[in-house]
């Protein structure tokens, strides 16, 4: 089995070196690729100087564009599994093995590294948004529960690699999870611990968050019923 660690990075100059050095030193059994999503800081320079394996997108395409590139890379080089790992060092690669174990044990298509599988969500504005989406998914999928809907640590199998790389509507966002659950794709969660980001800022401001919530709710409650379901 071939596993690819995909690291989408947008302006992660302060973090990328630490994240990748850790992978190279302690997790050399996995291949990795950095997707530099048109960063305007030194992300590209650092990757080139250090000789990291990276795809350099010339313009910023957003997270879903970066994921699409990574999935196509994985498909091109014939990987069986893709693990998405954030470039800001929030995710600990130690948990990769437990995600793989869960996929092999249950035969599911996506495993999410979740902060809230067994632990409770803290109460802040960000987590209220997360809980609204969790509830929306629960309501539209007949009671299926996904605790950490926005987690950026996910393991995909070959079937999902093809779909995420080549279908317009497959964004790496929670609305896709709702749609996939309704089209018979199995999604599991594994409890992981995540670190607070140590440098850089998150990309969602208030206006961004409102727009994000609107996109998710429209998609989950309305648009997903009009999308084609792939039956296999």
């Amino acid at each position, binding site marked *: 089995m071939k596993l690819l660690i995909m690291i989408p990075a947008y302006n992660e100059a302060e973090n990328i070196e630490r994240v990748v050095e850790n992978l190279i030193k302690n997790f050399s059994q996995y291949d990795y690729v950095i997707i530099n999503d048109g960063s305007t800081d030194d992300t590209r320079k650092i990757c080139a100087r250090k000789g990291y394996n990276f795809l350099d997108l*010339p313009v910023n395409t957003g997270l879903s564009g970066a994921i699409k590139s990574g999935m196509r890379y994985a498909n091109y080089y014939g990987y069986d599994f893709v693990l998405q790992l954030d470039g800001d060092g929030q995710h600990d690669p130690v948990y990769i093995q437990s995600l793989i174990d869960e996929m092999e044990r249950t035969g599911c298509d996506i495993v999410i590294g979740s902060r809230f599988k067994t632990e409770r969500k803290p109460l802040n504005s960000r987590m209220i948004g997360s809980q609204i989406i969790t509830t929306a998914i629960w309501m539209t999928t007949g009671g299926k529960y996904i605790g950490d809907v926005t987690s950026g640590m996910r393991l995909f199998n070959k079937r999902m690699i093809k779909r995420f790389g080549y279908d317009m*509507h497959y964004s790496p966002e929670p609305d896709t999870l709702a749609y996939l659950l309704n089209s018979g794709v199995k999604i599991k969660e594994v409890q992981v611990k995540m670190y607070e980001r140590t440098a850089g800022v998150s990309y969602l401001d208030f206006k961004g968050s409102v727009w994000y919530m609107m*996109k998710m709710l*429209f998609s989950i409650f*309305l*648009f997903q019923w009009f999308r084609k379901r792939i039956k296999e």
Partner: protein
Amino acid sequence: MSVTLRVLLLVAALFTAGWILHKIRKLKVKMEDAIFWMIFAAILCGLGLFPQVTYWMTDLIGIMSPANLIFLIIIFLLMEKVFTLSIIVSQLEDKISVLSAEIALRSHAVEEKMKICDGENHDINNNENEEEKDGTV
């Protein structure tokens, strides 16, 4: 407000919603871009179903005919769309020029590298030939 106008509004709302949902199904439009048209359809639908709202607003603003207000609302909504579209087109054009510049730069770099490699190969071959010549002489 005439019944004809109300029916027209409802038909337009249904058509807009149906058409954009069809486009989503055919993978022709991103879902986030369809949100505007769904809201647009909802507003048309609301105007068609509840003329009292239009009457109330015409009184408030002081426009003579409710029909005019409806046209005004639709024009404003469409203007907003044209405005944002125009901005997006500008950004896309800029992105394309950056993209082509980057592709040109990178293919240039690759070709330069190949030239250097070719040059080195030539030198090696020439040297070998010269040595052979030297040997034969």
